[in-house]
């Protein structure tokens, strides 16, 4: 997908040029940054002052040529920030609204979606009687069942509890990776959702692009830390499932060693993506003994990036993978850390959230 | 000329408008004219309308009023009369003889416009005439009845109906129609405009209406004495 947009509202200007591969692209940015406006332009609901959109080599919009493919032809199933359910239809009818427009052959298993979203008991209900989260789930189901060519999701999980979120996220991954191979554009404030899902990360700031690129590159760029939020920054690494152990833990192999994590739901041999928050990584000069952390990896410091505050972002090389650690400046001096220092990265087994493990 | 001439309000049948407006100028005091259909006028008088004089287009309604004691006894008078004519389009030929056959032929499948047979006076007269010449039953399916004689005239004027039965006074001013036959007076009850005073204040105007000056004006607008 290639998108070029220029649009002016009184007091706000959107001007950007973005490129997203297949898979899941995350749009990240503060409130009012322009995320929903971008979604609307891509869906075909907003005619920008200037714009160009190309998907899979087909040009869908090109204001210079007056080209504007109408939304229904684009079939970019959209989950809006507000649910926008059809008030005159039941939940079931809302869910089925788009199915008749789905191209022959492509079908999303209805029962599975209903089950996943916990909508089974609500099928006959009027949207007006639903709770906030129920509305959002119905809207999500409706978009999924329309078998869209691409999914545009504007904070689709914002009003869901984390348990439900963690049921839905793997399903989105499945849509991306499964037979549907569905590209997804995903707006979220929640960094753990993004890092779990996204292949490409685009950070929007006041209508412009502040950073964009493959998730791993953007996330492990110390310069991006302030954009993403100090507490959410971290690195994304790849690991292969090596074994599932009797005590419920799984062992994963990464380039620099092994990681032991609470049971990972993936077959042995699968390669997973792990997000390791910088603040979950400790650095030790000597290998700590008698500590509950099961993951201690030999590392070498390849960068120290002192921030504005009392913290420092330390980039570690762990057998070729980069891992970001956020520690205090006081610890940096106390331990005498500098570029080139050999050390150990200490990670708690439980510190790597299930939600940040993506396939 | 009446010595004592108070301002009056006259409720009158709509077809008298131009004639009455002119007569009113001869009255030394202010005259307020209110025009409507005869039935409406009669019911308004019944409801206590502020009328001093009432002039209707049909005897039935004036009888209805006097029966109810709504008009001053002895003031009833017929101030003018009219003639019934058959009108056709401007290029229509004269009809020398009027009977069921000639009328049907002239209509040529079209309709005969008349005022509503019971409610509109002109329609009631037309019905009497057609009954008199034994054409009523034959023509019944081909009638177009209207809510006023003016509407009947309009139907002929715009060509919606080939023929219509109206007053001679109506035909005078409409250029798009011509009189193709004048209905004999004796074939229907006399066309009279009954007037009466509703209040004492109405008497002087009633007197004016019966004057020769008024008669001349009525004649000018196509009414008969």
């Amino acid at each position: 997908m290639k998108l070029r947009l220029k649009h002016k509202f009184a007091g706000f200007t959107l001007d950007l040029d973005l490129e997203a591969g297949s898979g899941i692209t995350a749009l990240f940015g503060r409130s009012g940054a322009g995320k929903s406006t971008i979604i609307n332009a891509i869906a075909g609901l907003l005619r920008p002052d200037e714009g160009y959109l190309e998907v899979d080599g087909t040009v869908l919009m090109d204001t210079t040529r007056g080209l504007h493919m109408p939304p229904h032809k684009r079939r970019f199933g959209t989950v809006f920030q507000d649910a926008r359910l059809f008030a005159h239809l039941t939940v079931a009818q809302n869910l089925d609204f788009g199915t008749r427009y789905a191209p022959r052959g492509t079908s999303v298993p209805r029962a599975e979606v209903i089950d996943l979203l916990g909508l089974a008991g609500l099928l006959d209900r009027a949207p007006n009687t639903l709770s906030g989260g129920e509305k959002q789930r119905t809207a999500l189901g409706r978009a999924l069942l329309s078998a869209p060519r691409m999914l545009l999701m504007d904070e689709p999980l914002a009003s869901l509890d984390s348990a439900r979120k963690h049921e839905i996220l793997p399903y989105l991954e499945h849509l991306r990776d499964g037979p549907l191979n569905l590209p997804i554009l995903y707006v979220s404030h929640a960094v753990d959702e993004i890092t779990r899902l996204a292949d490409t990360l685009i950070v929007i700031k006041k209508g412009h692009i502040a950073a964009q690129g493959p998730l791993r590159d953007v996330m492990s760029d110390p310069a991006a830390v302030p954009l993403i939020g100090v507490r959410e920054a971290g690195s994304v690494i790849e690991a292969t499932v090596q074994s599932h152990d009797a005590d419920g833990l799984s062992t994963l192999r990464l380039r620099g060693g092994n990681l032991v994590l609470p049971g990972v739901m993936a077959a042995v041999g699968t390669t997973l993506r792990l997000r390791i928050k910088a603040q979950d990584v400790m650095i030790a000069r000597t290998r700590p003994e008698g500590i509950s952390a099961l993951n201690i990896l030999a590392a070498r410091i390849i960068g120290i990036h002192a921030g504005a505050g009392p913290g420092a972002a330390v980039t570690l090389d762990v057998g070729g993978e980069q891992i970001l650690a956020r520690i205090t400046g006081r610890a940096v001096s106390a331990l005498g850390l500098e570029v080139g220092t050999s050390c150990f990265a200490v990670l708690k087994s439980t510190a790597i959230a299930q939600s940040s493990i993506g396939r | 000329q009446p010595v004592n001439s108070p301002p009056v309000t006259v409720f009158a049948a709509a077809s008298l408008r131009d004639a009455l407006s002119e007569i009113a100028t001869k009255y030394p005091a202010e005259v307020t004219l209110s025009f409507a259909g005869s039935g409406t006028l009669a019911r308004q008088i019944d409801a206590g309308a502020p009328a001093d004089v009432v002039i209707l287009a049909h005897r039935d309604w004036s009888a209805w009023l006097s029966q109810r004691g709504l008009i001053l006894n002895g003031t009833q008078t017929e101030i003018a009369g009219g003639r019934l004519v058959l009108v056709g389009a401007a290029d229509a030929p004269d009809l020398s003889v009027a009977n069921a056959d000639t009328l049907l032929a002239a209509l040529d499948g079209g309709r005969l416009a008349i005022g509503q047979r019971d409610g509109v006076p002109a329609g009631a007269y037309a019905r009497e005439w057609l009954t008199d010449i034994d054409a009523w039953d034959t023509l019944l399916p081909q009638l177009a009845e209207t809510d006023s004689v003016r509407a009947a005239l309009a139907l002929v004027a715009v060509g919606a109906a080939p023929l219509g039965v109206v007053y001679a006074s109506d035909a005078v001013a409409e250029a798009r129609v011509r009189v193709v036959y004048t209905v004999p007076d004796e074939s229907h009850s006399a066309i009279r405009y009954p007037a009466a005073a509703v209040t004492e204040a109405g008497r002087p105007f009633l007197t004016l209406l019966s004057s020769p000056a008024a008669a001349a004006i009525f004649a000018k607008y196509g009414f008969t004495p």
Partner: protein
Amino acid sequence: MTLDAVAWEALRLSLWVALWATIIAVPLALWVAWLLARKEFYGKSLLNALVHLPLVLPPVVTGYVLLVIFSPNAPVGATLAAVGLTLAFKWTGAVLAAIVMGFPLMVRAMRLAIEAVDPRIEDAAATLGASRVGVFTRVTLPLIAPGILAGAVMGFAKAMGEFGATITFVANIPGQTQTLPIAIWTALQIPGGEGKAAAMALLSCAVALGAVFLSEGLARRVAVRISGAS
């Protein structure tokens, strides 16, 4: 206070005329209402004003204008007659008069309903693959159903009550154009006809109230579905 054959015949005709007027006018009014609510075009204000005209003009004038336009001698009337559609002195003309007179009422009700629909809901339908027609029939139309119903009832009621334009345009032909209001008026033109007029007026009320009740019932069902039992 008895109802004679004339009254029943007039009632039958009135119902027939009102039904047809409603059936024909609803889609037309809907289209105009939609244009006025959603589109910007040259002459929009004029169209809007035109729609309101029959409300402003005395009905007799409207009837006279119809007569002038659709009389068999006039170009429009002649053309229609050539394709077999005669309006003058026919119940079809009564239908036309009822449509014209009821149009402002219908358009207003529908327009208000359309303006109350959030276009973002329609946008959502489009992203799910619904074409413009699909969005209209599957989303807009059901959402404005109460407004359409309201407009239809107004149109039906007006058609049941229309007098001035009808009698001027198509006269008073029993069985063809003598609708209930015309029959009532006719009765009132005869001294002592009040009883008969009242009986027919009551009949007219009864029918209209039936229609109003029916529509309220329908509207309630639609509304319950939309707003939910809260």
